[in-house]
């Protein structure tokens, strides 16, 4: 089962390698990892999507909490979760196909961020499931390149990671 774990850490050199090292050392598989600073420049927030059963996740939380640089660990339940991922896709597109692609993008909430004689570069930010659907729709044109940020997530409602 997939779990989304949010971690607040001190924004020090080497913290990310400690966290990722811990996952591999304890035999946990990471699907994605995203990191960036928070409103406090001394604190970074890491979002990890990992596979494992309840016991595994409990162990993982405890081991993450043991790291001296860890401020807070929280596994976000699927019900309270707002997950987002950003994806950039470069596809083949000749001038005749541009209109069609534009329509798909409008419906799916994607943006066209660059264009060349025979390619278009699209940007989409949404849930991982929505990104998958979009990718399938766009695949027939010929995907040249895909980049994704990995999932980040925040809680619904007024709750925050600190509460």
């Amino acid at each position, binding site marked *: 089962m997939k779990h989304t774990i949010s971690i607040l850490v*001190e924004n020090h*050199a*080497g913290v990310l*390698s*400690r966290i990722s*090292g811990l996952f591999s*050392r304890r035999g946990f598989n990471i699907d994605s990892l995203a990191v960036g600073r928070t409103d406090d420049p001394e604190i970074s927030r890491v979002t990890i999507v990992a596979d494992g059963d309840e*016991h595994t996740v*409990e*162990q993982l939380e*405890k*081991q993450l*909490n*043991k790291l*001296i*640089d*860890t*401020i807070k660990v929280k596994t976000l339940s699927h019900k309270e979760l707002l997950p987002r991922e950003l994806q950039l896709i470069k596809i083949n597109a000749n001038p005749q196909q541009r209109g069609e692609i534009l329509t798909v993008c409008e419906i799916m909430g994607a943006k066209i961020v660059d264009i060349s004689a025979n390619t278009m570069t699209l940007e989409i930010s949404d849930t991982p499931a929505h990104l998958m659907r979009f990718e399938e729709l766009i695949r027939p044109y010929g995907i040249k390149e895909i980049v994704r940020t990995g999932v980040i997530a925040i809680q619904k409602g007024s709750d925050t990671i600190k509460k």
Partner: protein
Amino acid sequence: MIKAAEAMVKCLENEGVKVVFGYPGAAICPFYDELTHSDIRHVLVRREDNAGHAANGYARISGKPAVCIATSGPGATNLLTAIATAYADSVPLVCITGQVSTDQIGCDVFQEVDITGAAEPFVKNSYLIKDASQLPRIFKEAFYIAGTGRNGPVLIDVPVDIQQTMIDFQYPEKVELRTYKPTVKGNSFQIKKVCEALKISERPLICAGGGVISAKACDELRALAEKTRIPVVSTMMGLGIFPSAHPLYMGMLGMHGVRTANEAVSKCDTMILIGARVGDRAVRSPKFLAETTKIIHIDVDPAEIGKNMHVDIPLVGDCKHILQELTEKLGSAERADWLAELSEVKNTVPKEDETEGYVNPKMFIRKLSAKLSENTICVADVGQNQIWTCNNFQFKGGRFLTSGGMGTMGYSVPAAVGAKFASPDSEVVAICGDGSFQMQMMELATIVQEKIPVKIILMRNNRLGMVRELQTNLYKDNQTAIHIADGNPDFVALAEAYGIRAERVCTMAEAEAAIEHLCSSKEPYLLECNVWRNESTL
């Protein structure tokens, strides 16, 4: 303004450090230069891992973080095994390594290695100092982190140019870490649950681990056990908490433990693990045990609870506080039947045979421990010698040290040196085999140079005996790579070459006479015992 290297020395002085163990090199020279102006005694070991093991012995006896020092590159990597050994046994160390100059980091220059990266899996925390002004804070934090909560090693890597930088020195009075706050007091609701479980239990059992010693809670544990009449078994790391002869003490449990302890584990209805981490050698089938027994687990490290075994009542906190509280809250009990059942097994002493021309190591250790004074510190190495010592040494109130978690061969002699520095009035005896001795025999030089009167017992069976037994039992006696007779030196002559008095004994009668020499000697002493090659571990 002072040099950061001088600040490093001042940090150690502020932490009350009296002795450090190390080995110099180019990248740590500024620190060594300043160390000569201090009263701190530097003990020069003969290989860096032994600086770590000596600090390990010193820390465990003094109950405070101990310091070891190495240079960059190979000096630092040699230290790795000692860091991992300390991590596995939760021993508080502050390990200081020199590093190449900050502008050269990442260029693969001479004696450069990413030691904070390499040590990452087995340090409690580590620092690579890039800003010299942060050095005092980092040292303060390192000592605090190493010696609080679940103890462990902390590594500080200091580039050589940082050591030369001038800084304003002021040692911080306290640590400010928003992220690190170990739990001390046990949750009162959980304590209540433990009390209730113990009240209804008919056959409770305490399993005491090394955490009880780290928490300096041996007296508290004994008070609880004696008031509630709950029998006690110990893990290898918990040996020495209870005197061997105590009527409530049932011995060491596990794969290499004694029958009484293992029967107690299988017959108890409630087991209270205290400062023990359910290691595989102690609890072979945790799943089965948890299914048949109610498990209470008390530990300062929440990550240990439920890691290897399902736990019914978890209780996080410092066991010194928790044990005091439990003793207050629990009433006294008798448990005559349960104790009688266990004592019956305990009092059946297995018969040992003597083999002509050899010293029986089990009998020898019993006789040796009977002669040694009460406050003796016994350090066992790894291998058969370790298990012989664990199961036959009669603990009377002294201390027992060994590398329990990592099983690091070559631990005993350097750790004994460290222990002797921490407690100069105690007798310190290292027990090792001919295999493990040869992983550390360079430390005879340290013993002689520092005039440290540790006593060494060398059990020579001309085999790597533990592996030999494994090959006999599991690999159809295909004995391979365990024969060391052809390379073994004359150990007595070797010790004498260092100026250490040594004897070789081949019978129990000779051994008994040698024990007298060992106990009466005020000098370092080595005793080689000729042990039969097929002597069993248990």
